[in-house]
């Protein structure tokens, strides 16, 4: 049993690889999710700068945009991990996600990626990752998933 545990431990993907994969995925999200909103965001960019001084009525549009970006980003991570056990970033870095309890479900994929689209959860996740002995994210642990070397 200790031998098996040791073997599994060695398969764990490093933080560096996971971070690089996350950066690559975010670049892809930037192209397929955020780019279509670029025109509109550019247009209101000047207004956002001045909203510190003047009142403006752009918040409802921004809510819709940020909500769309968050949901589609979550879909990207969850769909790829559910169907392929890998996002494009993970494919490039040759790492993948596994379920450590049972068959990998879509709910598990959603749960492990929810923190990637909600800032405050991401901060908690990163702090947990840095402080935990296993070097795992909190939402990785909560969803009973792990990122391993392929």
């Amino acid at each position, binding site marked *: 049993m200790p031998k098996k545990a040791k073997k599994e431990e060695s398969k764990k993907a490093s933080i560096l690889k996971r971070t690089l994969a996350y950066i690559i995925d975010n670049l892809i999200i930037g192209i397929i999710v955020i780019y279509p909103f670029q025109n509109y965001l550019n247009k209101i960019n000047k207004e956002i700068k001045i909203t510190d001084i003047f009142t403006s009525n752009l918040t409802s*549009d921004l809510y819709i945009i940020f909500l769309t970006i968050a949901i589609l980003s979550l879909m990207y991570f969850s769909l790829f991990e559910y169907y392929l056990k890998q996002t494009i970033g993970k494919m490039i870095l040759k790492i993948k996600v596994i379920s450590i309890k049972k068959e990998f479900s879509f709910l598990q994929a959603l749960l492990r990626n929810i923190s990637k689209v909600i800032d405050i959860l991401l901060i908690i996740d990163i702090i947990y990752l840095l402080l935990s002995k296993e070097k795992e994210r909190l939402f990785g642990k909560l969803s009973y998933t792990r990122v391993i070397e392929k």
Partner: protein
Amino acid sequence: MKKYQFIILALGIIFLISLLISRTVETTKSIQPNKVALIPIYGTITVSSESDLFFGQSQAPSSVIIEALDKADKDPTIKAIILEINSPGGTVVASREIGNKIKSINKPVVSWIRELGASGAYWIASTSDYIIADPMSITGSIGVIGSYLEFSDLFEKYGVTYQRLVGGNLKDAGTPYKDLTNEERQFLQEKIDKIHDSFIKEVSINRKLDYEKVKKLSNGAFYLGEEALDFGLIDELGSKDEAVNKVKELANIKDAELVSFKKETSILDVIQKLTSYNSFYIGRGIGFSLFQGFKQENSYSNILKIA
């Protein structure tokens, strides 16, 4: 489904959804109600935003007003601008700066004078497309002030003398420490007359009134709203409702959502002001002790106000 087929399909679907929603947001935005910017011009019109935050007079710094006008001009959802004026006037340069900015705007601009729209504030109002004022409001006051207090006799009484050391005869024209010479008085009066004439010309052109007629009205007297209407200095008597109706008519829009461009004072502004005041007073203390005795009081540039 093969791995690569899935990748292309998933990325394509996510991109299409994103594209669809972005277009919908832009379309919705374009059918939102038309907006009208309401820009307040309250207090003395100045070029700088230095003011006593807690006890001082309210000020209308030209930089802040121009920034608001610029923002309203560039915002495609804003169809017109209402200037809410309640100001006794201010400095020549600040009034001119704001007036020039208004002239450069291609959207209808309506001035709504509340209690007070005199002097520099009237200069600004005259550059707009239409002026509405309350019948009892105070407007006009087309004139220039260069007056100041002179303390030379008081100083003499207390044995304080002004040691005049200047390079150039007119360098200290307007200092409160000595009597004006005839040459200095003539020099300052010429400048004041020039500004006054420029003010008259400006009003005459902006309001499409005969120069001589405006000159006759420009003895510095203020006029009540109803008098100003008779003289052609304003277009209509009324209040906010009339201003909104007029701006809708000029912009050819049925509905208008008023967007206030009032500057909000945040806690950060308060802290920033307090910090800058501390620095200013420390600096002033040092400056005072070092230079006060030798300071050139070339003060006429500070005292000319069209108020």
